[in-house]
């Protein structure tokens, strides 16, 4: 294992982590502030990617498609909020699970009806469609580095928003005691809608960013949703900081685990057994990590003060 390999893998891990963070941030906010389990968050990511495809076909360029898709993602999020989710805020968690599961089923099928079952894609954006040579054969796409930078910017922005502004203060207050905030005369409905729309937009943003490197297909959000949940429980529900740290940890552990688990297994096992055990272990790694973290800290790494 060479230094370059390790460096590249670390970059890859960071990139996955950033993507997860963008999805998890909205999820943890909505969950933390509104006490609302939104399983449909993953399909909002998928919707972002599909909207990017549609906007790209419409405008012919990534940069002009980006704001368009972002707005459309926000609009879709708000539409869902008005139609379905707002009726679920004061319901039991399990009611929310069932209803948002229904939304997943519906939207996964809807994109297939509208855009077809075949995977789609968006080309790399202008100015970012080149690569940095790392070795004589391997080069690293600049777009991926840009994705990391964009994610970090969003993280900083979010952190500023949550810690330095009035809205952020309300959000933090809402996360620890929503009833108290309402009692202070804040329009909790509007705050909720704002937070929800923002979260949906973040997930959509992640989808838009993912469209040029991943295939855009029905159901692409389902597995990421599970990963995003892993991220927010490890981080501690409602904590943006926790989501950031744990998203990076998950990204790194998953990526590095995938590349080195088989090698490590080969140290202890015969090759054929190692080929069975290694990949299975790599897939399990984040779940093992989550189980260990929750065993040691049952409310995640950065628990928001309990209710």
């Amino acid at each position: 294992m060479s230094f370059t390999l390790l460096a590249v893998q670390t970059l890859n891990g960071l990139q996955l982590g950033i993507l997860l963070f963008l999805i998890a941030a909205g999820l943890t906010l909505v969950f933390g502030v509104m006490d609302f389990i939104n399983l449909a968050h993953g399909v909002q990511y998928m919707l972002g990617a599909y909207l990017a495809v549609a906007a790209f076909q419409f405008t012919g360029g990534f940069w002009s498609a980006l704001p368009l898709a972002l707005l459309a993602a926000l609009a879709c999020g708000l539409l869902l909020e008005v139609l379905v989710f707002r009726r679920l805020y004061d319901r039991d968690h399990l009611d929310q699970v069932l209803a948002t599961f229904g939304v997943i089923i519906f939207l996964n099928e809807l994109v297939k009806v509208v855009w077809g079952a075949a995977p789609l894609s968006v080309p790399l954006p202008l100015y970012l469609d080149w690569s940095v040579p790392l070795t004589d054969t391997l080069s690293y796409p600049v777009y991926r580095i840009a994705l990391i930078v964009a994610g970090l910017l969003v993280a900083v922005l979010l952190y500023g928003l949550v810690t330095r502004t009035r809205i952020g203060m309300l959000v933090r207050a809402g996360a620890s005691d929503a009833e108290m905030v309402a009692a202070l005369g804040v329009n909790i409905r509007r705050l909720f809608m704002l937070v929800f729309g923002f979260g949906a937009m973040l997930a959509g943003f992640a989808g838009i960013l993912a469209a040029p490197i991943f295939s855009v297909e029905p159901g692409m959000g389902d597995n990421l949703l599970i990963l995003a949940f892993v991220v927010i429980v490890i981080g501690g529900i409602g904590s943006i900081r926790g989501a950031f740290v744990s998203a990076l940890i998950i990204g790194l552990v998953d990526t590095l685990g995938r590349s080195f688990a088989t090698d490590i297994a080969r140290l202890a096992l015969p090759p054929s057994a190692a080929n069975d055990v290694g990949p299975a272990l790599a897939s399990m790694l984040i779940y093992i990590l989550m189980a260990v973290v929750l065993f040691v800290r049952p409310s995640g790494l950065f628990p928001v003060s309990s209710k």
Partner: protein
Amino acid sequence: MIPASITPKTSPLKASTLVPLILFLGLALVPVYAQVFDDRFMMLFATRIAVLAIAVVSLDFILGFAGLVSFGHAAFIGIGAYAIGILSEHDIWEAWISFPVALAAGGLFALITGAISMKTRGVYFIMITLAFGQMAYFTATSLSAYGGDDGLTMWGRTEFFGTNLFANDISFFYLVVGCLAASYLLLRIFTGSRFGRVLAGAKQSELRVEALGISPYRYRLVAYCISGMVAALAGALMANQAEFVSPSAMSWHRSGELIVMCLLGGLGSLHGALLGTIAYLALEEVLSGTTEHWRLIFGPLLVLVVLYGKGGLIGLVTRRPGK
């Protein structure tokens, strides 16, 4: 939010006896229907419903009564199924060996994972059970000696002292329905006992139960193990029903589906879970026959059940007049 189980019922006997009675009677009559209308599929389909219903009822036992949302319940089904499948691969077909092994494996997995998971609450519990479910799933996919991801075809069914109890359609159906009824009754007895009251009490207020000098942890763990064993029984029957075992039986999608069936029927009555399973699978079967894009109808239907049918389908059935 007040759990349905402790809302005072005007006449609890009628609804809670009648609904399961009708459901079980309906199930028991399926072979008659199948004979009269020469519809063998109906019986095979009903067998599948009954097998899954065992697992869903076992989930409702911990979900509805103890408030433990297990998002890894499919793992127990898978463990039960793999126990039967792997033993059959080694030519062990006798029920008196394979079924106890399946149940013990499910119980043991529940004991170990439960002991760890019970340290967490709420969503953290949901996610830690998911973690264990995924571990079981990936372990199964790596079992290349037993088919790995493609699964394992069983070239026969479990044997029961030389009879064809498992192999004959009708006797197997009644065996499954019998197991379902037995699981249902057993779990219902548990919930009505002191044991069940401790669980329900701990769901409401852990402090109050602890103040009585009872540790809810141990009660919950026992409930979790019982539930895991019942789900493993469902898995063992499923292996026989499908004559096929595969990791997809323990994926998180399946665990999610079990929860959805449970919620659709309504929590905390056990027969709600049974009703939910029937409704979910029947709806899927009927809708998927109408159009390729049946999910466009199915999804919103689930949303509507939540918005307008508080307490699931069983809530619609037993709702007090005038409410």
